[in-house]
């Protein structure tokens, strides 16, 4: 889901939003405090669904605002000036460090230590397939991911604005000549990427039970790997890349050792960049 954010922004702007992992991080914090405000212990049934759903919406809102802020402060001034590509990268890394340190310094909210999530959704086995047990939390994550992906796919492929997003991704100058307001499309793209990252952030928090200022780093790298693996700029590719990366990691964990999981993600990233930089479903390199 984070991969979708990278891929959307890249597709439209040919720009890797390196601060995207902090958009995710903000989502885990927002999810945490939304949950805390509503419940302190285990919940069940309708209440649980309502509480988790609301927390997810809060996280999506907070992340979307962060993404919009990033666009406004870290990217738009550069775009208006026609700045070279490297300055976007520097600006993104700067924004990323700023957000991390902000949460580090703001001890009432963040601080150096991880902040625990309230144990609202007690983990238990939902069902078992082929000897693997699937927990209720994993079920929630997969279901949300599929729903988000389908919604995004419909939005991009079938809506008026989605058509504009695709046109800007393919050829911004011509899209402008056809009446597309490119600034607006860029904002919508950051917004959608932020919504996705926020949903992912709150789910990640529920699953791992904590939020911390640097929590976005590993998932950010993995999502970037998934996006590159599937072919960056390609929404269906991002989903495929995510699935494949998950499979490869688990295969590695089974075949080697569990602490190799993150190493495998990095190996995959390096391998894809070396051998097939356009990814599995990647766009042909434009001349």
């Amino acid at each position, binding site marked *: 889901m984070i991969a979708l954010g990278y891929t959307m922004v890249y597709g439209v702007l040919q720009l890797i939003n390196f601060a995207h992992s902090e958009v995710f991080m903000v989502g885990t914090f927002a999810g945490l405090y939304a949950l805390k405000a509503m419940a302190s212990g285990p919940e069940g049934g309708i209440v649980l669904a309502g509480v988790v759903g609301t927390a997810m919406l809060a996280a999506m809102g907070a992340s979307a605002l962060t993404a919009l802020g990033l666009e406004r402060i870290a990217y738009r001034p550069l775009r208006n000036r026609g700045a070279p590509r490297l300055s976007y990268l520097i600006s993104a890394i700067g924004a990323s460090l700023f957000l991390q340190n902000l949460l580090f310094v703001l001890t009432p909210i963040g601080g150096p230590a991880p902040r625990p999530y309230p144990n609202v959704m007690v983990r238990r086995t939902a069902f078992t397939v082929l000897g693997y047990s699937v927990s209720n939390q994993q079920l929630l994550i997969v279901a949300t991911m599929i729903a988000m992906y389908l919604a995004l796919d419909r939005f991009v492929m079938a809506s*008026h604005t989605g*058509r*504009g997003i*695709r*046109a800007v991704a*393919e*050829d911004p*100058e*011509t*899209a*402008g*000549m*056809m*009446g*597309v*307001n*490119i600034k607006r499309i860029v904002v919508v793209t950051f917004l959608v990427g932020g919504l996705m990252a926020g949903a992912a952030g709150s789910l990640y928090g529920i699953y791992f039970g904590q939020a911390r200022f640097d929590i976005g780093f590993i998932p950010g790298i993995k999502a970037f790997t998934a996006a590159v693996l599937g072919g960056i700029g390609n929404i269906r590719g991002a989903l495929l890349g995510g699935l494949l990366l998950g499979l490869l990691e688990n295969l590695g964990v089974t075949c080697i050792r569990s602490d190799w999981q993150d190493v495998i993600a990095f190996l995959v990233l390096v391998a894809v960049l070396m051998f097939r930089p356009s990814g599995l479903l990647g*766009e042909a390199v434009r001349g």
Partner: protein
Amino acid sequence: MTPILEVRGLRVRYGAIEAVKGISMTVGQAEIVTLIGGNGAGKTTTLKTISSVLRPAAGEIVFEGERTDRLPSHEVVRRGICQAPEGRRIFPRMTVRDNLEMGAYARRDPDGIGSDFERVFALFPVLRQRLRQQGGTLSGGEQQMLAIGRALMARPKLLLLDEPSMGLAPMMVDRIFEVVREINAQGTPILLVEQNAQVALQTAQRGYVLESGTVVLEDEAAALLGNDQVRKSYLGTD
């Protein structure tokens, strides 16, 4: 009658290079006007500036009595100027239908858009059969039809065409220009940019000859066809 488009003293630069050096021209309410000239003369630069893709360094562009040179490109489309750009610039991974829809992006009148789809199919019947195909899979001639059709979907009050004959076989050029005349006969004024001076001057009522960013000649198309200088430089006849 006042012209629909008036360009006054237009100058456009790319960094240190001045590509358009103070040109002035008009397009009347029902005219086909052509801008001819060799490669690098500044024709595309002029059209892109009219579409607000480029900003002029000096001069004015007045459309229907109002300046448009400070507006963003999407606003210029809403005012009624749309173009079929040089090299067609079809969105290659979007379907023919989506490409046509893109022309109507700034509009919010489903009924009007529907009837304009029919208008485009009447002009270019082959597009109806290609609706679900990706734009990039069409032949050069079909892509040119799609590019013109896409621009028509904006229901422009002024249509800009940048080298519609480029890279096409003579028979296809004839077919495209037949439709260009038809579009004009239906009431749309056209500013036609061409390197193919022969076909352009046979189609247009008036013409401007551009060399190194300046207008060197302007006259009735028929007069330009007979002009010695034009015949030598652009028609390859003596």
